[in-house]
């Protein structure tokens, strides 16, 4: 199954590479052609129920919220651009096309002329300007303020054209808009409130969006019921109703799926076996853009241990990635092989590197060359009087990272290191040690939904938790932002990864494959993560004959 999925991605990547004009069009305009509307001929009507892990905190995409909020907001609010859940390509949505000016300091977006709010009021450029003016107010608590604070002003060119004037060059601006938390809000409803957060009812119970579905009912803690928006600008959804059912426990989600109560949920690999013989359910592997990492600290009391790149390379050689993928990932995923950008972002060419092969003896030799040997015979390597002892911080609650941490402890102790396994609450000590930069090495998971996240994680001007500085990487990423030429950006990121590989700030593990379980009566299911898929729920249909 893994090789079939890899082949599908490779063929998708090849198709994308055959369309350079299309990609280069992003420099001067969006991919040509309007986004696909609801397919003709699909059965009409019916209800699809999607499981949510928790109650959404907010139904306003601008205010802070977590995954469940983003999933529901995806069906309620139309973003300017969207990320295709299968190809990860940035596609038109509310904006039909866009272009940058010559020096990439201004981006102009052309809005769909038929877009409306759920209350029938037309959606215009004024709504976009209003929303971003509020986002850019640092007292508004917009969760994506940091992503767009370089927007100097938003100009309404005409009713359906808006220009973002930036204080610095940004070739990735359309990518940022696709990440969510930047969907336009209805000005005519929010403008009377001093702060967006004051509109409690709009934010929590009666949202008015522009997406394919509108809210018709909810019971807090139980469900959110949406009805098809007849005037959706990409075509009325095929379904009549889309329901989000709040089911915190994953075992119960699987049980309800099998009982026919829900139609679509994410599952763990351990559930796949239970569903394998159920003809009413299809298990769909989808690629995430997330991978676990072993993260080294370059600041704090343990930084001297990892300062020498040879030490980190040695530790990389001590890790058996195939074993980890098989035992922890149950074979579901793809080893990153030293890359830092997932291959699913197919417009970024793979780096030209030799992965650090599993070779513990080589690892020991490299450590010895770096001066780390057991001079006092106590079983732990040392240098200049300091033993190679450190705590490995693992966020409790994530089984995969907990298991990887145990394997790493074993593998590093085989090198003569003294590793203390420290499991801590993610929102407790784990995040505190991370923010205060007092951790030695930690398990983490990085999402890289687009290349801008590469900048966030690996350059010195991002929220780079480990204090890693590589000026050559910084320069390459800066150069990538200076252009809107996608192919040129790809080459810069390819080179940046090669530099990182030579001086690794982290050891990336496998790119996680996620499993979705969907009722076979549902068609048109985007084969991607829920968060990326819900803007495309207008494509869903119910076929009772399936």
């Amino acid at each position, binding site marked *: 199954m893994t090789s079939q999925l890899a082949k599908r991605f490779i063929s998708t990547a090849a198709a994308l590479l055959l369309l350079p004009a299309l990609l280069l069009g992003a420099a001067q305009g969006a991919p040509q052609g309007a986004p696909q509307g609801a397919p003709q001929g699909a059965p009409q009507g019916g209800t699809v129920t999607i499981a949510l892990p928790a109650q959404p905190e907010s139904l306003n995409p601008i205010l*802070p919220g977590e995954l469940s909020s983003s999933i529901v907001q995806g069906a309620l609010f139309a973003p300017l651009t969207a990320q295709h859940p299968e190809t990860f390509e940035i596609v038109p949505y509310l904006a039909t096309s866009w272009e940058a000016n010559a020096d990439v300091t201004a981006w102009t977006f052309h809005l769909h002329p038929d877009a409306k709010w759920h209350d029938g009021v037309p959606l215009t450029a004024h709504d976009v300007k209003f929303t971003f003016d509020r986002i850019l107010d640092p007292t508004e608590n917009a969760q994506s303020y940091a992503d767009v604070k370089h927007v100097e002003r938003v100009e309404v060119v005409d009713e359906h054209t808006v220009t973002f004037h930036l204080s610095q060059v940004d070739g990735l601006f359309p990518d940022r808009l696709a990440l969510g938390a930047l969907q336009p809000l209805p000005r005519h409803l929010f403008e009377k409130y001093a702060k967006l957060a004051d509109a409690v009812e709009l934010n929590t119970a009666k949202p008015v969006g522009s997406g394919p579905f509108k809210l018709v009912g909810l019971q*807090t803690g139980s469900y959110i019921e949406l009805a098809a928006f007849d005037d959706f600008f990409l075509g009325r959804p095929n379904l009549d109703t889309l329901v989000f059912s709040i*089911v915190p426990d994953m075992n119960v989600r699987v049980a309800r799926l099998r009982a026919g109560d829900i139609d679509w949920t994410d599952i763990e690999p351990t559930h796949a076996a239970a569903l394998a013989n159920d003809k009413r359910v299809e298990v769909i592997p989808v690629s995430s853009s997330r991978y676990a990492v072993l993260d080294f600290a370059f600041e704090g009391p343990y930084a001297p241990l990892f300062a020498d790149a040879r030490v980190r390379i040695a530790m990389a050689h001590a890790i058996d990635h195939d074993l980890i993928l098989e035992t922890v990932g149950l074979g579901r995923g793809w080893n990153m092989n030293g890359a830092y950008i997932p291959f699913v972002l197919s417009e970024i060419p793979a780096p030209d590197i030799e992965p650090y092969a599993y070779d513990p003896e080589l690892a020991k030799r490299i450590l010895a060359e770096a001066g780390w040997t057991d001079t006092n015979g106590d079983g732990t390597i040392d240098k200049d009087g300091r033993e190679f002892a450190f705590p490995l911080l693992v966020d409790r609650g994530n089984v995969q990272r907990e298991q990887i941490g145990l394997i790493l402890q074993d593998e590093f102790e085989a090198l003569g290191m003294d590793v203390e396994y420290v499991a801590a609450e993610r929102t407790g000590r784990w995040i505190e040690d991370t923010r205060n930069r007092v951790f030695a090495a930690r398990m983490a998971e990085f999402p890289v939904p687009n290349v801008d996240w590469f900048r966030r994680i690996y350059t010195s001007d991002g929220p780079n938790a480990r204090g890693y500085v590589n000026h050559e990487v910084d320069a390459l990423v800066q150069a990538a932002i200076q252009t809107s030429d996608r192919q040129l950006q790809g080459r810069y990121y390819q080179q940046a990864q090669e530099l990182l590989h030579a001086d690794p700030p982290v050891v990336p593990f496998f790119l996680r494959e996620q499993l979705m379980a969907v009722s076979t009566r549902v068609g048109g299911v985007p084969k991607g993560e829920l968060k990326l898929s819900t803007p495309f729920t207008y494509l869903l249909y119910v076929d009772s004959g399936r």
Partner: protein
Amino acid sequence: MARYLLGRTLAALLVLWLVITATFVMIQAAPGGLSILMNPNISAEEAARLGRNLGLDRPVHEQYVQWLGNFLRGDLGASLSYAGRPVGAMVVERLPATLKLGLSAALFAVAVGVPLGVAAARHQNGFVDQAAGVVSGTLLATPNFWLGILLIVLFAVQLEWLPASGIRTIGSRGGGLADQLAHLVMPAVVLGTSTLAELTRYTRSAWLETMRQDYVRTARSKGLARGAVDRKHVLKNALIPVVTVFGVALPRLIGGSAVVETLFSWPGLGQLAVDAALRRDTPLILGVTVFVSLMVVVSNLVIDATYPLLDPRVHYS
């Protein structure tokens, strides 16, 4: 009686204040903070900005005093993670579901546990007694989470007799009495089983203890029928310790079971408490704590009020 009630009320207020303060201190002392600020994908500066906007940069004692002042004015504040929703409204919204589940579980536990205990006592060492012992012991040892999963697999997945979770069928087809009862059965049974088991055992013991009293022997020697002896002399007196046990269990039942509500997606206070704790949403945690504490206090008062009805020797002053 009035003085007794006044004294109990003052004691309850003191307990409430201690619980609130202890909860507040524990939240502040725990590492980490509000979950939306603990997102590792945002910078420390960004987290600080969001925290300032939510008033979390104020000194802790100032936050406490402000919360307490608002509470005394009947305002439980606004949730920090649920887009500023009033905490009072959030709690009141969940209360009916929790009361429905808790009272149903209590009714189930009493309706089955007490008669089973009586039957076990009346057939001491017989088959009924042995069976009741095994059943109650098994139920006491069974984690309710595991029992819940088992019932869901059996009744919802395999037999398709009952819905797997939720409080009603979504849409116009749901919400009727039959639909609500169907959704209530499994969570109420799971929540009530441990109390049922306790009541079975305590009822049996209390019944046997009461049966051995002199006044019962006198009644039987006077020729009263067994049924009459049980109803007039044994039942009321045996129930006194049973009511005590039930009084300890009742707050647990109606306070919102986090495990059962999470498992069955039951939108009650228990589920809200879990959400609040996971999000480290201080006003919401305190609001839930206040309500649950009040329910515990009120249920204890109700239980205490039943004692004089059962035993005329008990009176409060």
